[in-house]
């Protein structure tokens, strides 16, 4: 690991790149390696309790009856008389006391399809069954028939006429830009679904409470999303709906919105059965029914001058939302806002549409629309470099944003711009120029019949930290730090730990402010009856936004205590509690100064700050089979001030491998709108042997709007890995693969002229004569 430490140690808000002397301290930053993972010992000994590890004596088992049609009308359920239905509980749409809606952006997705209602995708939930044991449950499912009438289905977003959202971003005069251009390059890029593949499947356990309420324990990123969904559909008060996060075995966005569905299902069954009900998906159900990364079709038309100056970018983005809206408009928005890449261009038009298809709904996944559009943007940059016969590194040096540049929404990048720093850091650490010359020479000298070819590729990217536009203002998050009656300092937020390190860095940040050791600060449990709603654990916002809130809360707590005791907080807080009792400070989100965005016109400051990333990948391609081995990846990422180097590196390394999987092997095939490779034996992710050696370089350009200077890190590496790998495949083979993943079949087809495989993400229709 290499680390570059710009910015001064004295002046927190300084953004000039200076080297931090070794051993010196900056506010909020871990000394050396940082505290050990807070919940690490529990996870390493098997003591940590994930949802399926929780025992509720007498709990029943719940199951979901799903559609097997991509588009149909639900006519009736047929209950087989041969089965004794009195031993199970059956829940249909008629049992839902409140709104039959999974509460998200648009009220289009029912919790269960009502009789006479429209089924919009394979795997759609129709009814629910619970039984005291798994055998009875399976038998009940076998004896329940579903009658439907099939409707015509749409699988390709380009064929769809049903739009979830559209947006357009404009800057300058596009026509004048193209009129001026000496070279115009076009390209269409297509990406398919990607599964989050957290190793812990979705899981929820609902426990009915005597007051008519329900407590739900489960695996999730956003307890308050679930809380809102339960209140609305079960007609519960704030206090009656309680959501408690269990230890969560990975999320990556996959546990942002889907857990609301499974929690609603478990809660409906539990209330009707009058018993705790466990809904623990197996891998097959999880892969079949839960959200994926949105497939997209992205067209670029770019105007450049012969000297390489970028003068015009026209970009058209179409995303496939699947059967229901879920978070699609926000995903499209982030995709569009990042679609031009981190490059200065005076004349830009980016238009985006998200369309409905009869496939399971797509949703949040690390990067949230940006990996799709930035893949296309970087493909385009690399192809333009080739057309201009300049180095892709040199072209990026010329184009990359500097402080003071203006983005397509008119946002002036006033500070914390590290595009050049990450580019140079990755290029240097990977020795890009030298390897690039070697692989080019090797390609020129290659004899026919050669078996293997090596290649190196580069890509860079940016990622808006926190919610898009006015998102944080709408969330209006509240986070707290308290001194309890017992004299314990406790952090209260809704931010979930799912492996990224929330439970470690929050006490670290608060301890730093209070002059305590991190171990002296506790985390309150992520239980909606205990913690305030500090917003969802998504959008790389936890460290930056909520981390900032708890630092401010801690400062206020310290000031209040010291004003009374007139001694340093660390020496006096226990005495304070003995005399004055508990004290709690609630910190409300305040808009970042000078950050303004107009949601109606899509102009202004789309994000308070951006993170910057650059990846260089080296691959080996088997020229006979088209198989790719990704040998190593250098990823340089600027996330502002790094709070905890080990955890930050972990984010870069893990995100990079997910991007490598996206680039090479992760693809979902569909038939009649149903995912075909819906098992772990057929949906493949990289193993330790497939994984490249990954070098994470942390570059630090602090953001002045956060008291600790941190920006988000989780999503950054996901944006740049895939285009770097595909550029390396091109460097090795001479062919450009426009569709992700760049599978052996696609590479062979490009090299040999064999028929090109079907585009990713689009279902093959059912065979003639009906359903598959």
């Amino acid at each position: 690991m290499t680390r570059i430490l710009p910015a001064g140690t004295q002046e927190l808000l300084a953004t000039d790149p200076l080297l931090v002397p070794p051993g010196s301290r900056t506010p909020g930053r871990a000394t050396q390696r940082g505290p050990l993972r807070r919940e690490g010992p529990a996870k390493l000994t098997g003591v940590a309790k994930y949802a399926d590890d929780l025992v509720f004596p007498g709990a029943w088992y719940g199951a979901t009856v799903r559609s097997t049609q991509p588009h149909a009308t639900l006519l009736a359920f047929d209950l087989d008389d041969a089965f004794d239905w009195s031993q199970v509980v059956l829940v249909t749409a008629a049992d839902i006391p409140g709104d039959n809606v999974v509460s998200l952006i648009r009220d289009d997705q029912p919790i269960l399809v009502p009789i006479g209602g429209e089924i919009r995708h394979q795997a759609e939930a129709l009814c629910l069954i619970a039984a005291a044991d798994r055998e009875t449950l399976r038998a009940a499912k076998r004896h329940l028939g579903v009658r439907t009438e099939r409707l015509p289905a749409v699988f390709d977003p380009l064929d769809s006429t049903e739009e979830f959202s559209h947006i357009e971003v404009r800057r300058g005069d596009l026509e004048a830009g193209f009129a001026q251009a000496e070279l115009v390059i076009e390209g269409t890029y297509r990406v398919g679904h990607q599964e989050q593949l957290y190793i812990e499947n979705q899981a929820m356990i609902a426990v009915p409470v005597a007051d008519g309420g329900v407590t739900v324990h489960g695996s999730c990123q956003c307890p308050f999303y679930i809380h809102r969904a339960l209140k609305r559909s079960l007609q519960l008060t704030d206090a009656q709906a309680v959501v408690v996060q269990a230890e969560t075995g990975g999320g990556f966005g996959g546990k942002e919105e889907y857990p609301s569905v499974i929690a609603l299902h478990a809660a409906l069954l539990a209330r009707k059965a009058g018993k705790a009900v466990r809904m623990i998906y197996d891998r097959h159900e999880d892969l079949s029914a839960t959200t994926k990364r949105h497939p997209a079709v992205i067209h670029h038309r770019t105007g450049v001058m012969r000297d390489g100056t970028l003068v015009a970018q026209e970009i058209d983005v179409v995303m496939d939302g699947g059967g229901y809206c879920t978070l699609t408009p926000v995903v499209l928005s982030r995709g569009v806002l990042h679609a031009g890449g981190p490059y200065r261009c005076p004349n830009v038009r980016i238009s985006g549409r998200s369309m409905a298809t009869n496939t399971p709904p797509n949703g949040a996944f690390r990067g949230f629309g940006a990996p799709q559009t930035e893949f296309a943007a970087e493909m385009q940059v690399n192809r333009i470099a080739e057309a201009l016969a300049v180095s892709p590194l040199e072209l990026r040096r010329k184009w990359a944003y500097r402080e003071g540049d203006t983005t397509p929404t008119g946002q002036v990048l006033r500070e914390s711009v590290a595009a050049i720093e990450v580019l140079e850091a990755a290029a240097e650490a990977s020795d890009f120029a030298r390897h690039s010359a070697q692989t080019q020479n090797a390609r020129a000298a290659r004899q026919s019949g050669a078996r293997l070819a090596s290649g190196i590729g580069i890509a860079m990217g940016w990622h808006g930290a926190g919610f898009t536009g006015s998102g944080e203002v709408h969330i209006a998050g509240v986070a707290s730090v308290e001194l309890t009656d017992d004299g314990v300092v406790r952090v209260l937020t809704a931010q979930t730990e799912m492996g990224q390190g929330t439970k470690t860095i929050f006490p670290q940040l608060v301890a730093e402010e209070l002059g305590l050791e991190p171990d002296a600060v506790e985390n309150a449990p992520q239980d909606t009856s205990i913690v305030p709603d500090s917003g969802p654990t998504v959008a790389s916002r936890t460290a930056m936004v909520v981390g900032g809130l708890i630092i401010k809360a801690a400062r206020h707590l310290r000031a209040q205590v010291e004003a009374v005791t007139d001694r340093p907080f660390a020496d006096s807080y226990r005495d304070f509690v003995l005399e004055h009792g508990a004290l709690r400070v609630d910190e409300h989100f305040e808009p970042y100064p000078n950050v303004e965005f107009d949601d109606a016109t899509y102009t202004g400051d789309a994000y308070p700050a951006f993170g910057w990333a650059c990846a260089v990948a080296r691959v080996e391609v088997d020229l006979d089979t088209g198989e790719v081995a990704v040998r190593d990846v250098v990823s340089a990422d600027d996330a502002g001030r790094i709070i905890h180097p080990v955890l930050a590196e972990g984010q870069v390394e893990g995100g990079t491998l997910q991007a490598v999987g996206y680039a090479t092997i992760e693809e979902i095939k569909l038939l009649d709108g149903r995912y075909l490779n819906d098992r772990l034996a057929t949906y493949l992710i990289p193993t330790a042997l497939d994984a490249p050696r990954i070098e994470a370089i942390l570059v630090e350009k602090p953001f002045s709007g956060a008291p600790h200077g941190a920006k988000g890190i989780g999503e950054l590496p996901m944006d740049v890995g895939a285009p770097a790998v595909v550029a390396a495949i091109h460097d090795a083979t001479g062919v450009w693969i426009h569709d992700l993943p760049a599978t052996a079949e696609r590479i062979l087809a490009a090299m040999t002229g064999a028929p090109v495989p079907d585009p990713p993400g689009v279902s093959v229709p059912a065979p003639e004569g009906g359903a598959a």
Partner: protein
Amino acid sequence: MSYRFFVNGDPVEVEVPGMRRLLDVLREDLALTGTKEGCGEGECGACSVLLDGAVVDSCLVPVCQVDGASVRTVEGLGSEQALNDLQAAFLETGGAQCGICTPGMLMAAEAFLATNGPSDDELIREAIAGNLCRCTGYTKIVEAIALAAAQRRAADPH
């Protein structure tokens, strides 16, 4: 049917159908929930345990095959207060993130370390190739196992 075997050195006896998965026997009958289920078909390795010293996917092992054998699970390593050297190495390097693959990963690593053979990067990766991790990119897991291997070699040089 009744089956008798050893779990982490302790004798146990269970009255269950012979085809019941070892994973379920451990988690539900013996309340040892440290062993996790990720896929139920032997692809992810989250349920890895040691059966007479060899790594197996406990979701693919019927309990009838375990009769008389010795099973080792994550609960047989160190405790929260006293981690063993491998667990401590994972904690130190950042080898555990979400933690759901960790118990299985630790057992695969224990089997590898028990061979007392060479432990370069490639061999470590081969040893854990049956255990999927989606968080770490494997970098820090490989680092942790290499660290534990070096410590064990230093403690017991042959």
